């Protein structure tokens, strides 16, 4: 009766602030809370103290997308293409991935596909050294597609298990640079029929609603296989991925929680959903 209703609406107001502040987005949040009100009416939730847990489960469910099966083609090195906007953490994430693979005794080759930004090649080279990974680069200003082509030949010839390709940061709104990425993917597809095993979008957890636009454009251009959400060690909750996964069905594979080699964890939907609250 009346008191419970007031209690409920206060709680929902608090939840609205909480979810929007976690970067879930206003329209998405209003939709989630509208569904919640329906569920409460249909007595799916009996006590207001169950509300938070109900929401956590619902969101965790949204985040659990069946992982696109990684095509297992044993004839070629597992090839990972890493993309994303400027400063999102691509190069550092590659270092972390290389470290993980090296701990599994896999032979890793890193390709310096960012031939544009100052000291980008050097930065990746240092990560290669730190992780005992092999390294392929051309000179500054070289055609990134040429570096990628070379690296695929080398990965095969040198019997590597994993090839990870770094690319230059770029804004999803820059048509020329998005075309450059498509060209890199085509070069990979020429060498391996089904293209790279993985195309990972690296996204900064501090990003707001623009993250959805980024994911859409990168997905449209390349057909992403996964997302890595970096800088979750900051205070941002990274809620934008809820919309991204809900709309694009691209799973979050890993999260970055620091600047060191070991600061990469496999994405856990329940933990992530709980942390939003």
């Amino acid at each position, binding site marked *: 009766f009346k008191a419970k209703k007031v209690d409920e609406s206060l709680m929902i107001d608090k939840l609205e*602030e909480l979810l*929007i*502040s*976690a*970067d879930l*987005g*206003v*329209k998405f949040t209003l939709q989630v809370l509208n569904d919640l009100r329906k569920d409460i009416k249909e007595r799916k939730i009996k006590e207001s103290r169950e509300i938070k847990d109900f929401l956590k489960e619902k969101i965790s469910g949204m985040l659990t997308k069946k992982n696109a099966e990684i095509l297992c083609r044993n004839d070629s090195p597992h090839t990972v293409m890493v993309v994303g*906007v*400027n*400063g*999102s*953490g691509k190069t550092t994430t590659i270092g972390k991935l290389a470290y993980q693979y090296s701990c599994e005794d896999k032979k890793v080759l890193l390709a310096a596909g960012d031939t*544009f*930004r*100052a*000291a980008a090649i*050097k*930065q990746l080279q*240092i*990560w290669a050294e730190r992780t005992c990974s092999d390294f392929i680069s051309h000179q500054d200003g070289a055609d990134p597609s040429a570096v990628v082509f070379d690296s695929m030949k080398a990965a095969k010839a040198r019997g590597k298990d994993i090839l990870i390709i770094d690319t230059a940061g770029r*804004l*999803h*709104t*820059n048509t020329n640079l998005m075309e450059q990425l498509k060209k890199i993917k085509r070069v990979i597809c020429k060498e391996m029929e089904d293209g790279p095993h993985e195309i990972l979008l690296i996204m*900064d957890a*501090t*990003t*707001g*609603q*623009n*993250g959805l*636009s980024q994911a859409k454009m990168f997905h449209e251009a390349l057909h992403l296989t996964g997302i890595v959400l970096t*800088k979750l*060690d*900051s*205070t*941002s909750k990274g809620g*934008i991925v809820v919309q991204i996964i809900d709309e694009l069905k691209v799973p979050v594979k890993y999260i970055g929680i620091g*600047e060191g080699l070991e600061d990469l964890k496999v994405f856990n939907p329940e933990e992530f959903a709980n942390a939003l609250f």
Partner: protein
Amino acid sequence: NLSDRLEPILKKLKGRGKLNEENIRESLREIRIALLEADVNFKIVKGFIARIADKAVGSEVMESLTPGHQVVKIVHEELIHLLGSESSQITFSRQPPTIILMVGLQGSGKTTSAAKLAKKLKDEGEKPFLVPADVYRPAAIEQLNILGEKLDAEVFATNEQKDPVKICRNACAEAIEKGLNPIIIDTAGRLHVDEKLMKELKNIKVEIEPHEILLVADAMTGQEAVNIAQSFDNSLGIDGIILTKMDGDARGGAALSIREITGKPIKFIGVGEKLEALEAFHPDRLASRILG
């Protein structure tokens, strides 16, 4: 965009008379959604909408506008007022050299912006001195050196010195010796909640007493922009803001949050990766962009 969304609402509000709570309620709701979608902070939007309602209610609807359009006009003006005045200035100290310290989160664009600022000042006849005080990120010092070389601007040689405070102190001494001005110091990206690294910045500040501490912030930053800016301002005192990656399609609401919470001016915007891509800040343009 907002105008499209307000169209059907505005069509319903015919005629003149005063604006009242009733006829502006729907417009305010749409505007609230627009600001939140633009990444303006939740609490700041709340206060902003309340102020708009205060200003709007009771005001006479102007001859040429419908009540809805009137509300948008009030919002637009209030946004411009909040975002501050046009600017593109570094305040030079009467006692050279002027010391500028670039700070901010990881990947926000500090190193690139430091070089862009050096280029702008060099073009204006100054002799900027770039100081690479990021000793953590692989090849960070190299990065600034390459950019300095491109500009033909002097870059301090750290000579394997690993202490950022000592780097800054020695660089300032060298700048005075060589008559270089201003000194632009690039620091490592850091989280506002990293006590050790925030303390490092405080130590640098105590050591060299910078004239301008510039927070370099990414235009696509979400709701946490307020907490981030507040932490940096509380720890160090920010003198100005550089908003980077404005060449994308991020609405940039973080700028309003940062400006509201620190009260400090947005001095420049980054509009690309090239060293020329640093522009003056125009509040009216950002206001339109935030409204969408």
